[in-house]
């Protein structure tokens, strides 16, 4: 294989989740959350991942941005949307049920082996199960570096310098490529999709891959036995003026 002739490729893994503006409600029987008729969108952190890949390509540091998802058959519109943002191709691994993070990472590894990207970008976590695991697991299985919670990514030949949002502040790492990067909120602001791009995206290549053909399986080692709403907050008191507000805060030892 002549690597010099291979396109410099970025793989972006995205997930379809309940839209962040939806008020999620727990089913009365505790069997899960209500998903019927609820608006589904690309995970916000994954949208940032798509945007970052496109910006790297636009700076001339990548030739191709490939989007991948593991989702039910009706998730195609999300992929078309990512293509409309500017990606070149999409891979749709069709799975009827959600995969556990480690199972998802194994499937993504198969795609990585097939596509040979120099960079894989994912959101740091999906806002449905809030696991924050898949990117790190992929990096471990691939035996490559990870730079999680990125707020800045600078590429040089063969390495990436990534600034990470950590509890202590901003940590900068240098990683050899290929590597896995997961995005934090501050990395960029995703672009809006324009109508002509949506039309153009309809003809971009979208490959459908059955989960089983990759040897993939849902995982299912963590069984959810019950889903409950969190303890409700009680509506408190209203105060009539600033003096009363201060008195109440002072009484509670808060100022």
């Amino acid at each position: 294989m002549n690597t010099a002739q291979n396109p410099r490729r970025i793989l972006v893994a995205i997930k379809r989740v309940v839209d962040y503006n939806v008020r999620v409600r727990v089913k009365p029987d505790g069997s899960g959350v209500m998903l019927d008729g609820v608006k589904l969108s690309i995970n916000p952190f994954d949208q940032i991942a798509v945007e970052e890949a496109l910006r790297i390509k636009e700076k001339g540091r990548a030739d191709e941005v490939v989007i991948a998802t593991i989702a039910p058959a009706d998730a195609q519109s999300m992929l078309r949307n990512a293509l409309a943002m500017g990606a070149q191709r999409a891979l749709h691994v069709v799975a009827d049920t959600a995969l556990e993070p480690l199972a998802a990472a194994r499937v993504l590894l198969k795609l990585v082996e097939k596509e040979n990207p120099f960079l894989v970008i994912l959101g740091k976590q999906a806002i449905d199960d809030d696991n924050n695991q898949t990117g790190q697991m992929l990096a471990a299985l691939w035996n490559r570096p990870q730079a999680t919670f990125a707020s800045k990514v600078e590429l040089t030949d063969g390495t990436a310098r990534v600034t990470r949002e950590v509890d202590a502040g901003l940590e900068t790492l240098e990683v050899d490529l290929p590597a896995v990067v997961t995005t934090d909120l501050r990395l960029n602001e995703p672009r809006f999709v324009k109508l002509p791009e949506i039309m153009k995206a309809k003809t971009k290549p979208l490959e459908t891959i059955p989960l089983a053909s990759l040897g993939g399986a849902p995982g299912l080692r963590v069984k959810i036995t019950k889903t409950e709403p969190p303890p409700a907050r009680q509506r408190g008191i209203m105060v009539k003026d600033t003096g009363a507000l201060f008195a109440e805060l002072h009484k509670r030892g808060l100022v």
Partner: protein
Amino acid sequence: MTAVLVIAEHAGGKLNLSTAKCVKAATSLAGAANPGTANLGTEIVVAVFTTGGSPVAAQAAKLTGVARVLEVVHAANEHQLAATLAPQVAEVGQAFSHLFAPSTTFGKDLMPRVAALLDAPQLSDVMSIESATRFRRPIYAGNAITSVEVAAGTKIVATIRTASFEAAASDGNAPVETLNPSAALPAHTRFVSLAAAGGDRPDLQSAAKVISGGRALASADAFKLIYGLADKIGAAVGASRAAVDAGYAPNDMQVGQTGKIIAPELYIAIGISGAIQHLTGIKDARTIVAINKDSEAPIFEVADIGIVGDLFTIVPELEKLIDASRK
């Protein structure tokens, strides 16, 4: 036999408080696994990854409930990077049924890499422990709480939600064993620098008091009002998504489902209507105060103390009253 390995978080020769909270969580597992028999049959071990001779191992040895401390020594441990720590944790973790680390950026970065190396499932943000195989954790930014179960005999990797557990006391005296890992460590990831956040102001994620401003501030300049009040009471400063989108406050200050999810003692929402995505980020705050001119704003449905009025009048008045009380 249940054996819990707690991965210590530390920096600058100091054990992070989150480690004591993980030990407490491990103790609650011990109690849950064997009701009424305290720690019988459960061993809690803390692993500290250092370059050798660190005071951190001794600090961990004091934590109540800890049976042993393993100080794992390697030159690569100067910086606590997931890529170099994970093979060491996986090596030490072979002998344990449970591996815990705090659900901080340190633990969130490290533990999935460990779980993949060990082919173990991970439970993120564990908030309560019902038995050695049953746990509770939040999903949808805390809008739903799930009970999860893992088959007995499955190795479990978990990150512990530190806000849900108290810190273990420090009256123990566990032995410290030193260990040199044999796992090959990668050189593909290198530490460059760490810049501390936010100057003198407390860190938004861990601050006891947080004051946030919303769209009603109407300009970046007016947002100074929020900083002024925050500095007066030693609070961190946050912002609603609307305020961030409008450019009144930087992105890293965003509180909410897609921003920072926080649980301070006091949260004051100023000129924030209370969109769902904001409320999910603050619902674990102890006391929520809302200042808003719209009496119908949803923020009042969750506020412990609410006041309807003009923030540009109320905030300066409140500052004056705080000043007066300190004279």
